[in-house]
């Protein structure tokens, strides 16, 4: 095989490569470069990052990002596992129905979802009306424009990712294993916990990583449901950039997010490769 790039490959591959390098890679590198060049001094330094890390606003936003992502990960597991299990074992019709319901929101705009949650969780929303109606509370609860609303909204957005990642591993389980366990005298609960659950762990782990990282870097839903007073990192970056015009802080947050995003992708690749190798070795 010749090692040089052929002319035809170059002609076909160059336009898309140039497009992405010029419009995506260079702008991002430029942003990183700016984050490393503080207004005060000359040359490269970590001054912007140091200032950022010391600021209380950043620390709060980082903490909020992590709290939200942990909750979202836990909730999507709690929701995703039963759904994936039912979807993989139910009759084709039930399965299709479940999948349509789970996957359809993939295509929905964040504004549409956020509006729906406002109707449900707002001050005059469904939940508050109901709770006041049954006399449990007198004043409406604040269920929106806070961290709680972000968690609910992000769980809604990211649930399909978890279901799909679990579904792939569950469907790959050899049904003969369960039959074998049964023939050896294992009862359904034993089969579930000793055979099915261990085999789904790789999908669970990669799904959790995926959901956690997407939640850490999500913007639209946290922006719409969290409001300006409960920003997570991405929203904080937007505020610095678009409302406060504090470029040194904005670029530094962007740098942090960029590193986080890349880090998760590398970790995800590493983990899924590792798991795949283990799975193959086990066979």
């Amino acid at each position, binding site marked *: 095989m010749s090692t040089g790039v052929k002319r035809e490959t170059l002609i076909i*591959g160059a336009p898309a490569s140039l497009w992405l390098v010029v419009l995506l890679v260079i702008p991002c590198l430029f942003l990183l470069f700016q984050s490393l060049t503080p207004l005060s001094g000359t040359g490269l330094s970590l001054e912007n990052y140091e200032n950022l890390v010391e600021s209380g606003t950043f620390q709060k936003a980082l903490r909020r990002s992590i709290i939200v992502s942990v909750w979202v990960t836990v909730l999507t597991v709690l929701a995703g596992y039963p759904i994936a299990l039912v979807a993989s074992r139910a009759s084709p019709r039930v399965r299709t129905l479940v999948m349509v319901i789970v996957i359809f929101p993939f*295509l929905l705009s964040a504004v549409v979802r956020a509006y729906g949650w406002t109707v449900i969780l707002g001050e005059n929303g469904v939940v508050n009306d109901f709770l006041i109606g049954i006399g449990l509370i007198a004043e409406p609860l604040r269920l929106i424009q806070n961290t709680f609303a972000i968690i609910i909204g992000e769980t809604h957005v990211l649930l399909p990712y978890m279901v799909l990642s679990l579904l792939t591993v569950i469907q790959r389980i050899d049904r003969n294993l369960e039959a074998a366990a049964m023939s050896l005298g294992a009862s359904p609960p034993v089969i579930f916990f000793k055979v099915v659950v261990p085999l789904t762990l790789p999908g669970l782990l990669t799904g959790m990583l995926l959901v956690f990282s997407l939640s850490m870097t999500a913007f639209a839903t946290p922006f719409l449901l969290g409001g300006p007073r409960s920003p997570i990192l991405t929203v904080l970056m937007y505020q610095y950039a678009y409302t406060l015009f504090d470029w040194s802080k904005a670029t530094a947050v962007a740098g942090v997010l960029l590193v986080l995003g890349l880090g998760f992708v590398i970790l995800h690749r590493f983990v899924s490769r590792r798991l795949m190798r283990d799975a193959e070795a086990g066979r």
Partner: protein
Amino acid sequence: MTYQVTEKLWEKPLIALGRVFLWGSVCFWLVFVLAPVVVTIVSSFTAAEFLTFPPKGFSLRWYFRVMELDWFLTSLQTSLIVATVSTFIATVFAVLAARVLTRHRFRAKGAFEILMLSPLIIPGVVFGFAFFNVVLQFRLEGLSLLNLFVAHSVVTIPLMLRPIWSSMAGTELSLEEAAQSLGATPWTTFWKITFPMILPGIVAGAIIAFTFSFNDITIAIFLVGPETQTLPVQLMSQIEYTPDASPAAITSIIIFFTLILFFIIDRTVGMDVFAQK
């Protein structure tokens, strides 16, 4: 001596309990998934001045009302233009990239693949800011429509690439070779043989890219100008000041069209296109 499996009495209620718990939680979460959609659609049919749930009375008045809203009609037009143009640009690049990935061999192929998927690796909001930053540097804020075309075409390339790539990989090389052996030039071969084979992938990819662009806030929020508000951005700012049910009607209209596109995907390539990330 032989051993016998003894049936444990406590297992039966446990199994039953497990079943109830399983189905119960599935139902709960499916309601959770559907709730915002259903509540929005149902309340859009209210006859009252203010949005309430459950709705008071039934009417289509808010649907007629939104058809007269200037901001809705202009921003809808902007969004449709942006989504169409950016999808078209991304389609061309994604087809070329898929071709390179399936039919060519070269050393930097791994790097090429990562580059093509990089818009998925870089957080959308960071790309939006980075692009906005460059736009400001070159004082191109005025060209916001063009900026939207370009930025959306960048982020939708990998979304389109996946289905096109897999449909192209599923097209046997020997089909193209057969066509060439029969006298078809590479150009004819592409349009007569390859293109029809990857068309379902292109359709699915285009729908995903179109809806992404049409729905996007994360990137558009940095790039919209006063004259070029996209529908989601405009809707977002209008919702705060609109206590009536017109946002619900608009949202329901969007949901309805999204549903149609969703079923087109299901019919053409199936829902598996959503499965990989």
